[in-house]
């Protein structure tokens, strides 16, 4: 049976189509979900894509986190369904309290776009189980408000429980505390990160590698990981 992965479109989402394409390239069936509905259409997993939902008014992700479909997404996440939040999706997960901490304006004040090296710190999640622990990957990063913050007690707990999923390597592009690029929840079904795996899934369109220009496809493993997870369940 084909695994069905829903991608939610909010007003201001930019990368929903790219996320759907990544789902398809990984071998699953993408299902378009709409922010204004209360219908998950029976999907097996959910992606909250990047963009500037609701214009990032109030705070990045804040209004989207209270949109109609998020009631169902939060219930599904609490029930164990895999949920991946990318960039604005990560901000939405944080605003919805599915992941701890907050994301603030980059410390240097500028929007940044770069191919970013990350270290996979946790493979115990629905979206990272296809990586090896400590593996270094390169995927695009593009945001203005990607600085991850939390109080020291929360940061210590995240480290102690192995909930830091990804860390920036070589360059900390936005002032994120402890170089945190992404998190998972305790159960491992919810993952959020600022960089964009869906933009590194097909040779010719990804980051440069030592082998060839734009040949990087490190992001594909996020989407094949959730397939493996869904087949096992």
């Amino acid at each position, binding site marked *: 049976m084909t695994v069905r992965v829903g991608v939610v479109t909010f007003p201001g989402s930019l990368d929903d189509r790219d996320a759907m394409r990544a789902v398809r390239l990984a071998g699953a069936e993408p299902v378009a979900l709409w922010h204004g509905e209360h219908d998950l259409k029976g999907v097996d997993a959910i992606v909250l894509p990047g963009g500037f939902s609701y214009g990032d008014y*109030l705070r990045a992700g*804040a209004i989207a986190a209270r949109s109609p479909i998020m009631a169902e997404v939060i219930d599904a996440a609490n029930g164990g369904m895999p949920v991946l939040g990318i960039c604005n999706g990560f901000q939405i997960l944080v*605003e919805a309290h599915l992941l701890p*901490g907050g994301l*603030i*304006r980059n*410390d*240097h004040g500028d929007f940044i776009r770069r191919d970013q090296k990350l270290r996979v710190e946790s493979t115990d999640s629905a979206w990272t189980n296809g990586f090896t622990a400590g593996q270094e990957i390169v995927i695009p990063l593009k945001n203005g408000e990607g600085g991850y913050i939390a109080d020291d007690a929360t940061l210590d707990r995240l480290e102690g429980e192995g909930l830091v999923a990804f860390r920036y390597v070589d360059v900390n592009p936005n002032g994120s505390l402890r170089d945190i690029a992404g998190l998972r929840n305790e159960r491992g079904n919810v993952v959020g990160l600022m960089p964009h795996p869906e933009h590194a899934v097909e040779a010719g369109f990804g980051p440069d590698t030592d082998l060839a220009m734009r040949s990087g496809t490190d992001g594909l493993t996020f989407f094949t990981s959730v397939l493996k997870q869904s087949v096992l369940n």
Partner: protein
Amino acid sequence: MPTIVVEVMPKAELLDPAGKAVAGAIHRLGENRITDVRLGKRFELHVDGEVDDALLDTARQLAADLLSNGVIEDVVSVHVADDAHASTGA
């Protein structure tokens, strides 16, 4: 029309890049007695009818749950505006 004003500021211990950029502009204008700027938000909630304690409680709840994010911001004030000082947009 009564107005409930909610004021939210970034937490003091956090870097405020927006405030820092504004401070830079002030310094470039030659005013160096102003050393630092922090940039927050003011919400004006216009009310149809009277503001009673229950509605103020609701406003405080909204301020905590929606208008601010306690991880990065503090609600510094929730109060009924004096008409003379509220901006009406008129």
